């Protein structure tokens, strides 16, 4: 059974039909990527999974348990956390406080402390800047913090929304090395990206989203060599 399963999910912004029946699964330990151009509905999908937006139709299941009607704090409690688009760190809080906020729904002090050390192992830079205000970090560091913060929830499924956005290529590589490391550690990840090439390079499987609909899906390697995908997302046509 898939750990995360979306069936025929429809989400609206008022009258705008943003998701038109999304079907998607993520297996335990898998990295699955959802690629698509700007405005395709990738962020909307992640927000719907987390309960930040309510789908009008369809179902979202975590390990067979229905998430669809749950508010975000209950979804987080059940093990879905995300590094949101644009990172959204708490600018006037310190790095440490940001990480602690990630564990807001947890009560196990020892577990939280252990996970904090794990995050510092993944992102040694965060440990160096532990008392620095998050707003004064660089873009790459903020992305690391946002990912670390999401990991502090001890998620069963980690949602990453465009971690490469606005970062210099060298930093993008650094972030994706960490995603590979998380994959090795068997973290289940749903990765949303516009940068299809690098996303498909770390993922096991991929879905292509176009104006609210999944138009292609399959093995990441196959997708990377699919002529349509090459033309639309990997070739000269940039976004």
């Amino acid at each position, binding site marked *: 059974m898939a750990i995360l399963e979306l069936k025929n999910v429809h989400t609206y912004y008022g009258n705008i039909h943003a998701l038109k029946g999304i079907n998607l699964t993520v297996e335990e330990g898998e990295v699955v990527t959802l690629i698509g151009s700007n405005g395709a509905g990738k962020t909307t999908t992640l927000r719907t999974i987390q309960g930040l937006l309510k789908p009008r139709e369809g179902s979202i299941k975590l390990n067979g348990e229905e998430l669809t009607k749950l508010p975000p704090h209950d979804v987080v409690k059940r093990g879905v956390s995300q590094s949101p688009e644009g990172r959204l760190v708490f600018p006037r809080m*310190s790095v440490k406080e940001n990480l602690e906020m990630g564990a807001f729904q947890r009560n196990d002090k020892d577990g939280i402390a252990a996970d904090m050390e794990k995050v510092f192992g993944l992102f040694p830079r965060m440990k160096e800047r532990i008392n620095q205000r998050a707003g004064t970090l660089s873009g790459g560091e903020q992305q690391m913090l946002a990912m670390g913060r999401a990991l502090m929830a001890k998620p069963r499924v980690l949602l990453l929304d465009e971690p490469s956005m606005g970062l210099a290529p060298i930093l993008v590589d650094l972030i994706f090395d960490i995603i590979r490391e998380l994959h090795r550690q068997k973290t289940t990840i749903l990765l949303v990206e516009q940068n299809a090439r690098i996303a498909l390079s770390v993922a096991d499987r991929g879905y292509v989203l176009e104006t609210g609909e999944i138009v292609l899906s399959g093995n990441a390697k196959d997708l990377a060599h699919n002529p349509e995908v090459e033309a639309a997302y990997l070739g000269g046509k940039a976004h």
Partner: protein
Amino acid sequence: MKQKLLNNTEAIAIGFMAVLALVTGGWNTIVCAVIAGLLIGLSANQNRDGIIRAGVLGAIASIITAIMGYIFNSWVSTLPGVDNQAPDHLTAYPLILAVVIGTITSLVVAWIHSIHEEARRKQAFLIFMVVCAVIFPFFDQCPTLAWNGPISIANPTVGCTTSKALLWVNAVIVTMIFALQALGLNIVAGYAGLLDLGYVAFFAIGAYTMGFLNSDHLVAQDTFLKTQFGFWLVVWGSAAAAAFFGLLLGAPTLPLRGDYLAIVTLGFGEIIPIAAKNLAEVRIFEPISLFINQLFSKADAQSLDRMQNAEAFLKNTLCLIGCDPTRPFDFTAGTKGISPISPPVFGNILGIPKIYAFVNGDYIPWYFLALVLLAGSAFFIFRLRDSRVGRAWVSMREDELAANAMGIDIVRTKLLAFIIGAMFSGFAGAFYASYVSFIEPGSFAFDISVTVLAMVILGGTGNITGVILGAFITRVVDLVVLERLKQLINGITEKVFFSGIDNPALVQFVQSIADATAYKVMLFGLILVVMMKVRPQGLIPAETAAQKRKA
């Protein structure tokens, strides 16, 4: 590069305190000199030169205030319409003391300010502020009192006897009540970012709860209430009642968009005083009691007939209040107000003998009670900020979407802030009712909501020290400066400009235009607008733990 002679804080401190000394004079000159010294000391450089400079500047500022005090003593106090002054008020003693104490204050504060280790500096400040707060009311004893020989055990008030109304202590007690409210609104507006425009409603609910349960108003009527509950019990009841109404108001509104809360609270702030005004004649044969009666009497066909008969009716009615059907029940006393509301009593409960009872009009004990309550509340809120909900509030203010994604229940967290804020307002209202011993609907008008909001914004949304400072500036301007300025302007217009003109209508017209107190609401509105524009973070902006650690 040319160095500025004075920095902004120093210039404002000297200027403002000079004006204050000019309109208050006498013993008040000492208070003015001390405040000037405090501000100068706080803005000094943290080294030896800074301390010396602060000492010199402090001496200059004190001398200026003393000169202003002298002008008050010799000229302003003789103007018609300015409050009558007791003879000792106008002697040279206070002026000499002002120079000495003002200079010492600036030196001491600058010295404390220069302590490098943060924990020790804070400790030293705390001790200094406590000492100031404790000796302050005894200086204020002097203004309207006769000189009564040297200090002694039997007469500890710096050579003055007590009795008459004091200029400052009363103003400061009222200020502390407002500061208590401002601390609560700071949770609502500063921590949770909610706009509450009817905050006075919770203040009124707290005050009326105190009025109902701790005066003879209901006891004297035929109700379930047979005796007063006493201040210490009712104060919690007031907080609980306000919190309950906060829940009632917030629960349906907070899930909606932000603007709705502003509208709903604005309306609620208007409704409560109107309800207090109109609930003075409640009759037992109202539709609601008819309905209850039917419910409890398992109404049959004849029960409606029975209701024509008062006695039979009452047998079946669950009578809590107003059980005499021939007489309307006076619930809130309407515009005539509830009075007297009993002051707090220590002891006299559970077999413990009465230890001490507060007396209305005897300000000093009230001052210390208010001080303890305010300090306790500030401490409580300070600790609250580092708690789990405190963290949730701060993160929500920083980024609501991210906070939501972290698993913070936004509606519940906001509701909690709204309720705790209401609770503080109710608490303050209870103290207020007992302190002034008289409440009427007019005491809970919209301008209180605006004033408290101005305090929070002026002081610095989210910062406890800032909010208390904002409360003090706003209230001292309101209760002392504007009032005295009005007297001064009236006195001058009457004595100087119109001394030869015999046209009372004209004099009155000019005086009513120049009435400084009439511009109060405009002034606070202006403060709100200017602060939002120029310094939205307030005088002392909120600092986060990250900043604290860096300091």
